């Protein structure tokens, strides 16, 4: 089971096996980076935040409570790091679309790039607390409960922010994509 594996890795790491933390990095590097990227909207800054989040997780590993899910604990760190970064850096920088995956045909890749750009622009129009719940729900596919644990807010607040954010995205995105897709 996913959660048991993470807790085993944490225990190994605390027992001095640094390879265990490498496994944690391998497992969560991409989702953590993408979460930071969608919140911060800058590739290099998202990498920096990802790095600082993993370092912080490593340093605070002894504080992790195995009663909870490890990835929720890790996401809390990366979300906090991202929010701290956003609060310090007010400027918006366009996502570097050259770095979007190119594993598809040229037409598919272009469509993906265009979609991703439109979504990112719409996301950046949201308040950051709404953006975060969209990122955690739609991009990280977390449950209301998991999001409430990460953000330390009630599930009711999670749903309220999520539903509000969707409503705002609806207005922005449907101008481009129409009513039925």
């Amino acid at each position: 089971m996913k959660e048991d594996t993470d807790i085993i890795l944490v225990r190994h790491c605390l027992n001095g096996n640094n390879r265990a933390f490498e496994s944690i990095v391998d497992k969560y590097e991409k989702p953590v980076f993408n979460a930071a990227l969608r919140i911060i909207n800058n590739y290099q800054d998202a990498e920096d935040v990802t790095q600082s989040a993993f370092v912080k997780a490593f340093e605070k590993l002894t504080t992790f409570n195995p009663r909870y899910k490890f990835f929720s604990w890790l996401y809390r760190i990366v979300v906090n790091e991202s929010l701290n970064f956003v609060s310090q850096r007010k400027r918006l920088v366009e996502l570097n679309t050259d770095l979007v995956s190119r594993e598809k045909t040229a037409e598919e890749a272009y469509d993906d790039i265009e979609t991703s750009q439109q979504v990112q622009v719409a996301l950046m129009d949201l308040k950051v607390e709404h953006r975060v719940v969209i990122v955690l729900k739609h991009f990280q596919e977390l449950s209301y409960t998991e999001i409430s644990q990460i953000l330390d807010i009630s599930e009711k607040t999670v749903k309220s922010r999520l539903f509000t954010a969707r409503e705002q995205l609806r207005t922005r995105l449907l101008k481009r994509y129409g009513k039925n897709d």
Partner: protein
Amino acid sequence: MIDAKYIELINREIDGVNSHKEGAKLKEYLAKSPEAQKLYNELATVSNVLKKVTIIEPSPNLRKTILNSLPSGKYTARERRKLFMPRMGVLFGAYKLRYAYALVAGIVIGFVAYSIFDVERSTPSDFSTLYGAMLSHESALSFETAYNEQVILDELEGTLEIKYAEGVVVAELDLQSQQEMEIVLEFDENDLGFLGFGQFKGSKSSVGVDKNNVRLRNMGENRAVFMFTDKTRSISPLNVKIFTAGALVYEKSGPTGRNED
């Protein structure tokens, strides 16, 4: 006007968390309310659009950067203290005494082995390996130029020179730029080993070193020298890349020696 409880049911339906009963109740309501059906359709569209957003790959170096940033040593300071400095009461317990004997035995064996096998160190006849820490422009070695190029670009200008001597390769860059530039030297770690870096001009730089590349980030006037050991004397190329504002503006693969013929 859509009832708030059905707005919630619509959103929960999008998230796939409605029970069978809740789903049926919503379906019944949507059939009666075009407004609610419209809202559901549009939110479903939003959800589908968000699913199309591509997962973006972090740079290949990020993993290494993360792991290199972790606090040195296998354990956090607390763990290190816990494992290697047991409390006094435990130290004298029979269970821990075995480890104390093993530690002492290991130290004694180490001293004995060192005294038996200590190899007389010879003074090197050349000082090229000292260049990493004691850069001197007056060299004891006779350097020859393998490559020299004038770099003239909109973003920066200056010179790049690669020189070589017995077992040593030196890349010297003398560049000026109004904007921040990143200089990356890439090499095959089997052929070249990074020794050190010296900066003669320019503001403080940030330098990063990996197994097969070294990076310098700076702005303004910059004269820097990078030193490598030439492990194989195989004239392995040294690739020089210069980035400004994140864009590659210059790239050159320079030889690190001269062909005999």
